[in-house]
């Protein structure tokens, strides 16, 4: 490994680097969204791109999500590879038609004769009292609707590889990055997300989960910020003599059920950690992926640590009460053991 390959990047910088590298070799890639130009994105993921590529390819948009996300679909079908930003995933409500009725369905409607090679980047997560319209994850909402791949990196290495893979994919990819992992100091960022990132371009396989910590007593399955909570919980459990395996899903669609099943087959126990709402979401899907396949691998009823089914409260004490954290994961283990 050369010295320069040991540099650490934040997720924000890793995303920007991947985008710049792809834009250099592929003139059809361009970026559009609110405040992605001079500001470099509210979450830093387009920083520096305007200077290198200019306003034609790094395109600030009006506050018109329906129009510019719909336009990205049209441009993608016409030979471009747009990367569009929906600043907060919570804003999907004003433009979801363009996302799930157009972006997600046009390949199918064309019988596979059309490609829709676009990336929809969007920020997720809370924990800093930004209120119920700026703090949601909505993983389940996006993953539920067929036709769009959904990825959510937990660290900068994965972020760069996923970004490059997403831009090269001929299907639409929703790229959900967590605010608390972006490496923006003003958001109190998770240090574990800033890791070594190679300078040269590389891709990560979309739809492939990672076992980020080996263990034999329980599988903790999560994504994004939840992975860091799971790793901290695993450390705490280790002190109690419990060996926890942590699975980072990396992609929600396609979902790597094989890796989840293999892990649970090994440990016999499953805890799912999801910062999205509990019901009808990711946690239920993951548990179903195991139980409907082979319920006999389970030595205990699975547990979930997820956001309760309430809008995200503003006041810090209430929000923190609702958010998953390492203590809640350890408590889930203790409940499981006691049962």
């Amino acid at each position: 490994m050369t010295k320069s390959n040991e540099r650490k990047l934040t997720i924000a910088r890793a995303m920007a680097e991947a985008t710049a590298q792809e834009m250099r070799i592929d003139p059809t890639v361009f970026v559009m969204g609110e405040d992605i130009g001079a500001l470099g994105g509210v979450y830093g993921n387009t920083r520096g791109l305007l200077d290198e590529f200019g306003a034609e390819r790094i395109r600030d948009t009006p506050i018109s999500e329906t129009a510019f996300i719909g336009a990205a679909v049209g441009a993608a079908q016409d030979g471009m590879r747009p990367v569009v930003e929906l600043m907060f995933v919570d804003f999907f409500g004003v433009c979801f038609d363009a996302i799930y009725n157009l972006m997600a369905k046009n390949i199918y409607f064309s019988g596979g004769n059309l490609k829709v090679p676009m990336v929809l980047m969007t920020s997720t997560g809370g924990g800093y009292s930004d209120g119920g319209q700026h703090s949601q994850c909505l993983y389940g909402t996006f993953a539920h609707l067929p036709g769009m791949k959904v990825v959510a990196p937990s660290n900068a290495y994965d972020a760069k590889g996923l970004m490059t893979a997403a831009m090269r994919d001929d299907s639409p990819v929703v790229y959900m990055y967590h605010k608390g992992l972006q490496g923006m100091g003003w958001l109190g960022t998770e240090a574990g997300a800033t890791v070594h990132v190679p300078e040269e371009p590389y891709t990560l396989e979309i739809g492939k989960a990672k076992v980020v910590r080996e263990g034999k007593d329980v599988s903790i399955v999560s994504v994004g910020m939840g992975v860091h909570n799971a790793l901290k919980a695993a450390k705490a459990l280790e002190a109690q003599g419990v060996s926890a395996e942590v699975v980072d899903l990396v992609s929600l669609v396609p979902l790597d059920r094989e890796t989840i099943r293999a892990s649970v087959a090994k440990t016999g126990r499953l805890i799912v950690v999801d910062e999205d709402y509990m019901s009808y979401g990711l946690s239920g899907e993951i548990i179903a992926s195991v139980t409907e396949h082979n319920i006999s691998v389970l030595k205990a009823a699975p547990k979930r640590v997820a956001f309760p089914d309430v809008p995200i409260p503003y006041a810090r004490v209430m929000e923190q009460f609702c958010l998953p954290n390492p203590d809640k994961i350890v408590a889930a283990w203790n409940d499981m053991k006691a049962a």
Partner: protein
Amino acid sequence: MAPTQKEQHWMYRNMVTSRRFEETIAKIYFEGKSPAFNMANGPIPGEMHLSDGQEPVAVGVCAHLTPEDVVTATHRPHHQAIAKGVDLDKMAAEIFGKTTGLSGGRGGHMHLFDADVNFACSGIIAQGMGPAVGAALSRKMQGKPGVAVAFVGEGAVNQGGWHEAMNLAAVWNLPFVCVIEDNAWGISVAKSAATAVPTNDVRAAAYGIPGTRVEGNDPFAIYEAAGKAIERARNGEGPSLIEVDTYRLAGHFMGDAEGYRPEGEKDGLSAKDPIPAMRARLLKDGAASEEELATIEAEAEARVEAAIKFARESADPAPEDALTAVFAA
């Protein structure tokens, strides 16, 4: 249509109250957030959008409104809330995330709801349009008095929902007024880069309703334009659109370095501060004496201090309160 002397005093009082409130919030916002700015820390976490500079719009419009009338505001709602008569103690407590807040700390700075004075706001751009039009429809259908006013920023006027709501209000001839606060910026994107027409008043033509633009951030001119529109609405003559040329003296949100502003754009801006201008005008017109103004200012300051004290001293909600009020009781 000019404001009465009493109305002028009311307007000045509310502008000053709003400004003192914002200044106090701004100071407290940085408590616990330095030396390294971390939005999650301090007594007021989360994003904070201040409205310094935009006070004339709120008072010029709300001077014509009663608590019965409906206002939907934006993500930058404090000046609008204060002018509409939202309970200042409860509003401050809400911003501090306290149990005594308007929603007991559930909504926060961008989601202030005060049913007593028919005020609501939202963090989603242009999202107040539909509910305001709906309130106007409800008033018309029930034969109840009152108008509905939606405040939006000039950036919001490019949202699909804005256009749909304008058309609906027009085609149903509703008692509705849309007030656009044109501060020339949507976060870092200049209006000229985002909006196809130089001013938004002309967009009223697309809906066959009157459109007016008020230049100069002048509370009296805003009062006059709003008065006409609201009177029209009250008389059953239908909706109107008003755009006001205003500006934000601060960044888009607290912590915004404003690197996107062209150099020198803010030069001279503080000299155009509408509050000293209004003060000078009241004196010059003989509408208020120095003593009267000093009294208004002292009262406004005391009002704000009391509200902030109330907020600071109020209790945090119980954490489990998060799980309540999801459905109607």
